[in-house]
């Protein structure tokens, strides 16, 4: 009798386990729950998946990109609203770091550190990293910011309630609250231009060709070539944001 009881219980245990496992598999495949598996949508192979490459060695810090961005996207002219800007990094001989970006580099950069004190200096153009697992998209409480099927992080002005949560969440400081619309504002990779077959404004005016962008799905496209030929890094890789802005010649000091 004792053995019978044990067998029955084992059978029940196996049955229940199978039901539980089956339910888990079924629910994980259910569409509304995929959000728990992917921070954003998986890339759609049929659409382009944009990535950006910036060659720091070619950047001369002229600030044309920042200027053009403001003109193209009607960004307020005050020196603290930027969708795209240029920073000048200076590492001194004593190891201290100085980062300058007067008016986002729009009026041109001037080196304020005397030349004999400089160990290393370079420009870093900054803009939205269009992350694959964007922290800003994940925190939006109303679904006003999202990643488009092309991998571009956009803001829906009609839906944004201006809670500033995304501005806090962006680890790269790429968002600001537009004082005119009172909604979150950020780089759209000039979505309105690339949809019309034009280059984004900052790419259009870069005099040295330090910026490129292209489809990361294209195996022999311009982005794959850039990534193959250069030793590229993303900003803050430890945060696992899946940044799609790749820098060639990025120093470890850049934050």
């Amino acid at each position, binding site marked *: 009798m004792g053995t019978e009881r044990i067998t029955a219980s084992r059978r029940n245990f196996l049955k229940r386990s199978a039901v539980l496992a089956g339910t888990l598999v079924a629910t994980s495949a259910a569409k509304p729950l995929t959000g728990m598996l992917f921070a954003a949508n998986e890339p759609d192979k049929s659409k382009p998946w944009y990535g950006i490459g910036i060659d720091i060695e070619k950047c001369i810090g002229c600030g044309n990109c920042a200027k053009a961005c403001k003109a193209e996207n009607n960004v307020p002219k005050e020196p603290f609203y930027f969708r795209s800007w240029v920073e000048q990094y200076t590492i001194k001989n004593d190891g201290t770091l100085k980062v300058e970006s007067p008016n986002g580099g729009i009026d041109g950069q001037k080196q304020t550190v005397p030349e004999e004190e400089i160990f290393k200096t370079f420009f870093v153009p900054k803009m939205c990293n269009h992350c694959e697992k964007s922290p800003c998209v994940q925190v939006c409480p109303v679904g006003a910011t999202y990643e488009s099927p092309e991998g571009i992080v956009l803001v829906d002005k009609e839906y944004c309630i201006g809670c500033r949560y995304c501005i806090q969440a962006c680890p790269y400081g790429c968002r600001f609250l537009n004082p005119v619309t009172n909604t979150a504002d950020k780089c759209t990779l000039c979505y309105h231009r690339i949809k019309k077959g*034009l280059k984004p404004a900052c790419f259009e005016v870069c005099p040295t060709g330090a910026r490129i962008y292209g489809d990361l799905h294209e195996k022999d496209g311009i982005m794959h070539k850039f990534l193959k030929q250069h030793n590229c890094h993303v900003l803050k890789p430890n945060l696992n944001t899946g940044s799609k802005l790749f820098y060639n010649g990025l120093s470890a000091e850049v934050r």
Partner: protein
Amino acid sequence: MPPQLKTLLPLFFLLICIFLIARYFLIPESFGKYGHYRANSMDEIAALPTHYVGKEACTDCHDEEAAKLASDLHTGLTCEVCHGPGSLHVDDQEKGILLKPGSRESCGTCHSLNPARRTEVINQIDIKSHHPERENCIDCHNPHAVWELKE
């Protein structure tokens, strides 16, 4: 069935109905088409006006300048790098006045000395001490063909 449930169930049913009706009217048409957002907002952003027109739009009319530009070191530059956004000018040549920079400051945004600039990428000059007897860079240099000096 307990009497409490009998009175509460219709109330619950009514509340659920009100919720569903309100939800139907509050959620915009395209919400959730691709994800947890309004898909139509992408079209709204894509329909925004552009201000930079691109080099081809300029060279259609200004072929002389384009030929000069192609002959010298500034060949990689688009016109709007120096002249600013050109959409107004394309619409109306009278009203859309473009920038014509050429001062020491405007040329200096690229060509002034800065240790962060690589010499192999850009030619640099001390914009203050270089020929102080002339006021502007374009007094001597032709910005479309930079090595063609005027005098």
